[in-house]
């Protein structure tokens, strides 16, 4: 297969970037999208041009490292999937493919297609955990959890932290990411003690980081590789409303 590529090149965080055109030929349809970029890079190296910087690690859709906007969609046209799970057979021969980074102010560009997502780490640090001192845990089966709740918690916990939700959101909001962690822990008895503290801390940190606001377009859940449901955002809104009311009441 043959493709025309338009790829965002940017030297560093401070420099100005722009789209650059490339062409690539003789790509097998079983090549993954990232492997196609590997091939392009090998060609660039051979011709003395610096390869396109892009992030990836596990290449099986679980580590959440890859962060490409392909043809205007976070992680490309095949949902639900991370960019690393995208195969060239999903494109038309001869197609022009646009590749850009995730564009969110809170994810500054490091180089080309590589971004800095430490904002997401800071949101978790603001309360996305259960304070359980190592070694102090009670016997695992001492707290039964209804299967239904455990399953719901797992659905929320499946988030891979890639940030596609914010990248796809017209407002660059990270509500889906944040709500997934809040919901995961709110569904479980272990998460109850810090429930209010957690939602207040994480939501406020999200605002501090400069993410946008949710206007319920549900673009986030449409591109989410882990199929996190936007209903968790509703849950977070509920949790937040209750927690902030309680806080105001001095409880």
């Amino acid at each position, binding site marked *: 297969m043959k493709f025309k590529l*338009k790829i*965002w090149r940017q030297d560093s965080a401070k420099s100005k970037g722009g*789209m650059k055109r490339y062409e690539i030929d003789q790509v097998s349809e079983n090549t993954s999208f990232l492997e196609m970029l590997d091939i392009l890079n090998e060609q660039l190296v051979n011709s003395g041009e610096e390869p396109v910087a892009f992030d990836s690690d596990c290449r099986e859709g679980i580590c959440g490292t890859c962060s490409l*906007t392909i*043809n*205007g*969609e976070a992680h490309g046209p095949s*949902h639900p999937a991370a960019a690393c799970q995208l195969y060239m057979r999903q494109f038309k021969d001869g197609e022009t493919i*646009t590749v*850009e980074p995730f*564009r*969110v*102010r*809170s994810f500054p560009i490091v180089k080309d297609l590589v971004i800095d997502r430490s904002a997401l780490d800071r949101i978790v640090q603001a309360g996305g955990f259960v304070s359980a001192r190592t070694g102090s845990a009670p016997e695992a089966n001492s707290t039964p959890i209804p299967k239904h709740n455990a399953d719901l918690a797992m659905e929320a916990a499946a988030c891979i932290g890639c940030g596609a939700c914010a990248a*796809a959101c*017209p*407002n*660059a*909001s990270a509500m889906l990411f944040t709500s997934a962690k809040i919901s995961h822990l709110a569904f479980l008895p272990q998460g109850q003690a810090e429930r209010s503290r957690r939602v207040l801390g994480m939501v406020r940190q999200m605002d501090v980081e*400069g*993410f*946008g*606001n*949710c*206007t*319920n*377009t*549900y*673009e986030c*859940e*449409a*591109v989410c590789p882990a199929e996190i*449901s*936007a*209903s968790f*955002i*509703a*849950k*977070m*809104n*509920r*949790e*937040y*409303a209750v927690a902030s009311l309680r806080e105001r009441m001095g409880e």
Partner: protein
Amino acid sequence: MIVAVTGVILILFVIGHLLGNLQIFLGPAWINGYAEHLRDLGPLLWVIRAFLLVDVVAHIYYTVRLAIENRRARPTSYRRKDTVKATFASRHMVMSGLIVLAFIIFHLLQFSFRTTDPRFAILPADPLGHYDVYTMMVLGFSSPLVSGFYILALFLLALHLSHGSSSFFQSLGLNNKNLTPRLAQGGRIFAWLLFVGYSSIPVAVLLGWVTLRTHS
């Protein structure tokens, strides 16, 4: 959240307003009587008006503030941006909202302050001595230009509400995985029912189904 709460109030107003207006189909006596009832509320009417005004201002103020924040959250825009699930309505809430605002101003000038048409100020009272709202509406809507603008604005309002009316459930956290699709569907049906209801009046006038009635 403020946007959602103020939005809900406006939705309630829109429903009430429609129910009032539809009385035009029952004849001048009904609607003029209804208008008179409203006026009889006296100071309470002004309280309601003031409340609605504050509500509208708050709804707009906070929305614009959020919109500015949202714009700041993505300083460099995508060279190519496709959407997967977001509806046209959901992506253009500010635009549809602002056009509806312009419409509301015109609407108030036309029917409340009656500054757009000199005839409205000098309308004779109806046989029961009420201000003749019926005639005013018929006169107002018999201009295709005015009616056209109304229908366009109502279309945008419906678009705005097709997203907004279900969206507030989400923002207020009154939603879950099962409810979301139903609410979204319900919201769309609700919005387009409103559209049909409201636009039925200018359409009826234009088509001559509702006509001026000479006072006997």
